[in-house]
């Protein structure tokens, strides 16, 4: 417990932790200012027009979905040349907010805003996690600590626990400020929109997934820096992965005619985790006789979580194994 308390103090006394947090808060300020400056509240006429368009589009949405459901359960024959989405998923039912394009609608735009937060927090977690342990290795702090606590797994575990908990705490605080900032902008220069109980639940779950992505970044950064005993090792490996693997495999797999090469990229699972489902190509098509899938590959959030968790677990396993076996020369 003493060790955890000491590591907790060390995490929040480090300049990199503080500076990185200040940078991401600065980013929030810049993004929020940009939204605030480019938003305006809709006039009564604009709101009425949006309501009218939403009612028309909503009627089409209901009709299409009903037809699709009827085709799926065999009540009616599919129309020739007509395609139907899988699970009759036509997205959300159009609402007035969707037709207020010039203004900022929190309800309509929150997913994109929180995906931005997810990227920021993922990078933040990666840097803080990597630097927290990487600097310990390069400064000799780890060796010093092991002279006091010669239990390697215990020491690394304490550092990891503190890094992940610290990043989670900062991510939650950041998302609270983030949400407050955008709700404020929406109420002053846009619209918040009406959220049903289910939509609020969905929003909160999205926030949880965003915060956990920050924790994932911290775990990966921590593991890479610990294996390489240097913060730069993690940063280098991260950049190399993005440039060499993510771009390289996209080209290589395309040349090799591999189906859905995106499924071999970690970024696809990050998208799947954030958006709940990432569809790669394909569609659900019906002819005169039957409906069938024309291919495609879907990554659900559960599968994404499993893949991301496995990647983090494998890298952290490598870090603990290296810690156990290596000579600290």
């Amino acid at each position: 417990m003493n060790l955890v308390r000491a590591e907790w103090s060390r995490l929040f006394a480090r300049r990199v932790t503080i500076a990185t947090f200040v940078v991401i808060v600065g980013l929030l300020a810049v993004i929020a200012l940009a939204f605030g400056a480019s938003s305006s509240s809709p006039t009564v006429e604009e709101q009425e027009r949006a309501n009218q368009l939403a009612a028309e589009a909503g009627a089409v949405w209901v009709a299409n979905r009903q037809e699709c459901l009827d085709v799926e359960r065999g009540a009616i024959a599919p129309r020739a040349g007509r395609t139907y989405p899988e699970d009759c998923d036509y997205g959300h039912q159009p609402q007035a907010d969707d037709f207020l394009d010039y203004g900022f609608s929190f309800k309509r735009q929150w997913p994109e805003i929180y995906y931005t937060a997810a990227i920021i927090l993922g990078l933040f977690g990666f840097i803080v996690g990597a630097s927290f342990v990487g600097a310990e290795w390069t400064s000799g702090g780890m060796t010093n600590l092991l002279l006091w606590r010669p239990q390697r797994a215990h020491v690394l575990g304490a550092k990891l626990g503190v890094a992940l908990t610290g990043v989670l705490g900062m991510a939650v605080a950041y998302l609270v400020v983030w949400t407050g900032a955008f709700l404020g902008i929406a109420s002053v220069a846009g619209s918040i929109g009406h959220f049903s109980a289910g939509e609020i639940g969905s929003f909160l779950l999205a926030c949880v997934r965003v915060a956990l992505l920050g924790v994932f970044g911290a775990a990966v950064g921590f593991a890479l820096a610990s294996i390489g005993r240097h913060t730069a090792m993690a940063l280098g490996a991260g950049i190399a992965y993005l440039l060499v693997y993510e771009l390289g495999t996209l080209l290589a797999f395309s040349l090799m005619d591999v189906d859905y090469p995106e499924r071999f990229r970690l970024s696809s699972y990050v998208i799947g985790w954030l958006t709940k489902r990432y569809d790669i190509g394909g569609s659900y098509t019906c002819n005169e006789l039957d409906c069938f899938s024309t291919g495609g590959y879907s990554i659900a959030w559960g599968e994404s979580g499993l893949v991301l968790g496995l990647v983090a677990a494998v890298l952290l396993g490598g870090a603990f194994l290296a810690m156990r076996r290596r000579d600290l020369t």
Partner: protein
Amino acid sequence: MPPNPPLDTVSSAGVSPVLEIQGLQKAYRTFLGSSRAALDGLDMVVERGDVHGFLGPNGSGKSTTLKILLGLVRADAGQMRMLDRPVPHSLPEVVPRVGAIVEAPAFFRNFSGRRTLNLLAQAGGVPRHRVDAVLEQVGMRERADDRVGSYSLGMRQRLAVASAILKAPELLILDEPANGLDPAGIREMRDLLRGLASAGTTVIISSHILAEIEQICDSVTIISRGKRVAEGPVAEVLAASAVQGEYRVRVAELERAVEIITESGLPVTVAGDHLVVGDLADPTWITKTLAAHDIWVAELTPLADLEDAFLRLTGTAPQPGGFRPVDAADATPESRTIEVETS
């Protein structure tokens, strides 16, 4: 390699040594499979309450030995006991009683000295009041709240020593503690270590400042190429490694003394402010002979100091016309191992 018999040494004083090492072996291997032996069956004993010098040329295995003792490096073979417990197995139990600095100590540059020690104290369950006590002890009270990045090398060294004595250890292991210290700092360090030793702390010092070791240490172990080449009380190691019959003679009238000694057929050379006389079977002859000519001997000592002994035993004496490669393969130490019985 067959296992060594268990260590259960008890010194002649009836007290078990603080540290015993037997047959310690370590080779560093590269990714390509080649290996370099760092320790080749090292034996070492440090008695309780001693200030013990641990000496050897660069690459001789000193740091590796200390790192193995402290669990930072794994040994290939050999046995070790520290404070009556087998290590590294029992290291977690022993470590609260051991303070150590290994190689160049490094700290976060943007933390203050006090914060650095507070974090270590917190991690090690040491009472906070010890931090102020050790800062005072190493003469850092005034600079304790400055950033480590603003410290000189000597100040960082003091901080390292402060971190090592924070636990009020029974055994203190210091790798080059005087590194970067100015002459006053070296003297303060010497006084500090003497104070700790007189309070019952056993101190092991690895250092290249041999004059300092000679002044402060009760006993030494000298190693070369991963093996012990000498051990025992400093005076006895010096005596045993001295060249027989060679003495340093200090007198006021060097030229007259040279004439008198040369007439008797003994080899004599002037070395700065003193003479070196060889083939001297009976050193009292010098005193009597020079006194008969009204020349009074101010110093008459066997010609050996720790530096001479070290260079001779480790085979690392500088050769004219070039630098000796570090950890040179051809640096063959004398084949004899000097082991001096402790009384």
